[in-house]
């Protein structure tokens, strides 16, 4: 490193060595004042300075080349091209080339500028004075006096009726803004209380449609230990309001050996051990999708609320506050699983108006 650095150019030889310590008169902790400036190598060695200059310029040149590379990549590389780059794996060639060239182009400008500042620009530390933020007493008194004059001229303090009605009008006028927000959406009414299953009646039951096959299901289609997802008959993924409907209607079906079902009410709502629970978690509404067949526990992967499907979907762990609602199911004359009514409580997260 120092082979091109002649000894006589070292700071010691320049006679600018070290601190000029103030003699401490009794106080060893007194502020000795700003230390003397220490020259850098580039300050005293012209060859080092020239080398630094070349380094800075080199970085700017690399940046120029990288920008040319960016434009060339944009034009030349097919967006669909995938390449293998160790250790990243298979990546989009265009994304990689654009990102690396842009990164180099920008980084080298920055590195060049910082290197320039650190090696060649002056590094003399300069003290600057601070002034208190607070105004002095004279200014303060003057401003307060001027304000008093202004306030007196407005008569704001004297004419109390004007003042009070002004405050009143200013307090009320933002209400217009709040009222204008009313048409953002409809009123809640009883929307959260019902799902698409409300269309089902004893006379005209709704079939349960398997979400995977889009077919109605027979009892024997649901095997013990499996979890099946279902939606009401008549709902299609192409419906305009499908998202809104499925957000409430989604069902999960499990089949548990009837003697393993601990909750009798729950068993009666099911059909030969097939139980239909809302898929929407009662915590904040994520869909429940993890099922452990040995224990009949269902777990919401979002916040880990765990429900025991064999015991009326009681909450056994996690932040949910109440069991999953269960849909009463039976079979129609053709043997297809059907619902004859809505859930008897609202599905999804609880809310103020929800009766408990």
């Amino acid at each position, binding site marked *: 490193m120092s082979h091109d650095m002649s000894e006589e150019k070292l700071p010691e030889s320049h006679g600018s060595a070290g601190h000029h*310590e103030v003699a401490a008169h009794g106080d*060893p902790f*007194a502020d000795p004042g700003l230390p003397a400036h220490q020259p850098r190598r580039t300050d005293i060695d012209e060859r080092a300075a020239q080398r630094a200059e070349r380094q800075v310029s080199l970085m700017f040149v690399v940046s120029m080349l990288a920008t040319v590379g960016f434009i060339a990549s944009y034009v030349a590389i097919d967006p669909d091209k995938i390449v293998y780059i160790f250790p990243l794996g298979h990546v989009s060639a265009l994304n990689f080339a654009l990102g690396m060239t842009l990164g180099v182009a920008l980084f080298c400008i920055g590195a060049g500028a910082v290197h320039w500042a650190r090696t060649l620009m002056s590094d003399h*530390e300069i003290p600057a004075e601070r002034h208190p933020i607070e105004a002095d007493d004279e200014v303060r008194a003057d401003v307060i006096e001027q304000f008093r004059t202004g306030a007196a001229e407005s008569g704001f303090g004297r004419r109390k009726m004007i003042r009070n009605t002004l405050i009143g009008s200013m307090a009320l006028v933002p209400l217009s803004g709040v009222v204008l927000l009313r048409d*953002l959406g409809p009123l809640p009414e009883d929307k959260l209380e019902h799902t698409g299953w409300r269309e089902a009646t004893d006379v005209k039951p709704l079939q349960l449609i398997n979400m995977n096959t889009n077919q109605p299901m027979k009892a024997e289609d649901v095997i013990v230990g499996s979890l099946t997802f279902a939606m009401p008959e008549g709902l299609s993924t192409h419906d305009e309001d499908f998202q809104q409907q499925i957000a409430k209607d989604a069902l999960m079906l499990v089949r548990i050996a009837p003697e393993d079902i601990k909750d009798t009410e729950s068993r009666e709502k099911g059909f030969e051990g097939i139980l239909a629970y809302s898929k929407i978690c009662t915590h904040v509404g994520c869909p429940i999708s993890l099922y452990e067949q040995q224990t009949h526990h269902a777990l919401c*992967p979002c916040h880990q609320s765990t429900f025991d499907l064999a015991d009326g979907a009681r909450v056994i762990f996690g932040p949910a506050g109440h069991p999953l609602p269960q849909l009463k199911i039976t079979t129609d004359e053709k043997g297809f699983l059907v619902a004859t009514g809505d859930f008897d409580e609202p599905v999804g*997260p609880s*809310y103020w108006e929800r009766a408990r």
Partner: protein
Amino acid sequence: MSSASSTTSGAAKPAGSTRAKPANKWEQAADWTDGRLGIYSLAKANLRKIFPDHWSFMLGEICLYTFVIIILTGVYLTLFFKPSMGEVIYDGSYIPLKGIPMSEAYASTVDISFEVRGGLLVRQIHHWAALVFVAAMLVHMMRVFFTGAFRKPREINWVFGFLLLVLGMFDGFFGYSLPDDLLSGTGIRFMEGAILAVPLVGTYIQMFLFGGEFPGHDIVPRFFTIHVLLIPGIMLGLLVAHLILVFYHKHTQWAGPGKTEKNVVGMPLMPVYMAKAGGFFFLVFGLIAAVSAIATINPIWAYGPYRPDQVSTDAQPDWYMGFSEGLIRVMPGWEIGLWGHTLNLGVFVPLMIFPLVLVAIAVYPFIESWVTGDKREHHILDRPRNAPVRTALGAAWISLYLVLLVGGGNDLFATHLHLSINDITYFVRVGFFVVPVLTFIATKRWCLGLQRRDKEKVLHGRETGVIKRLPHGEFIEVHAQLPQADLHKLTSHEQPPVFELPAETDENGVAAKAGLIPRTRAKLSRGFYGEGSRIPKPTAEEHHEITSGHGHH
């Protein structure tokens, strides 16, 4: 066209302008601008403005630069993104999604990733810069907190910075909700559940925000306006105010020789800081671009479009929302029935603690100045060890944040560390209360230990590693006196007096018991500055006695 009215040629300067003739065209242009904008007066104060140098001042710069990067890339993305929930069938170049119904928002995000050349890169830069932005704000805020830089006159700027952090977090949330992919939809569903938990008005806010029932068709266009217009607009205003105040207050500086409360020592804006800070922008931008080329973030094509009845495992928010996710995951599911209504404490309590965790840090400057009664301006920074209680409070806050982050990522911790998710949740429930307290105690003791070491160094000097054998055979290590600059640096911090209550009896001997508020203040002040919270500074006498060299070493 008509007769020219200008008759004088080569006339003398018009009356009124006494300015010297500009030396070149640049000066001429500057003169012209000065006549209209007053730039000379503006530049006089700022061109050679002094900036003190410390690496930690870069943290704020990173915040500023990533904000600029986010705006630049964000504008580009709006040119291609369609903030609409209208349904389309995907028919682009990404085969796995072909034929699947999805919203225009999701389809256009996939298109930006695969059809628009460079679109993927800009998306990645936007997201990476957003992550770095929030992280840098948090770390910048820690720097300001632990060094006491928030003290008078900078309390208001602390609050501005806090608001920027909160708005940044929320804008991040709205941003990753926009592509309408499976993960973002799950985040919005969580928000719906949280809103529904608000007593009395929850269902109304939900209906108005979503334009009906979840998810409806309005949420993406509405979030888009909030994400690109409302929040960034407010942030831009706050940012400008933040920077104006930084300029006005001037930077803080560390204690050291020649540095006082009345000066600021450093190098001038032009040229050193223009080059350093300007160059640093390109360093940050360049690095983020390179990271975006290498590391994939938010691969929405892998998640698929949002469907309310589907979810992927390890559904996670971005890390800066992790602590709120932790709160919601570990809170027990308490619901209270009240006269036919439901109070959903299991969601509402976390929803209320969330702002409290944030606001606790926002109001800290005001609490500290009230406890200490310190109304002076401060420009010299505290070393964190010299303010043990503040440092310990900050560390306790960070530990709470981290504990909740563990709660928010409990599924990942469970799968990666092979732990039971239930155990992690129980740990977080206890840790929420216990870990900050333990962290407080440990940090305070650590600070006091460091103070003791400083005192030792001041009085006995630095260990030289030279072993000396005394005539009677004892070995000692030779200690070298510190230079005066270091002695000054290690002893220049203040140790303010504890706030004492006025005497219990007045001059007539009548008992005058202090009110609850002064008594609280005195107690807190003892906690801050009392005997257990600081090691007395070495005095000149102590130093003199030891260095006078009679049997001491």
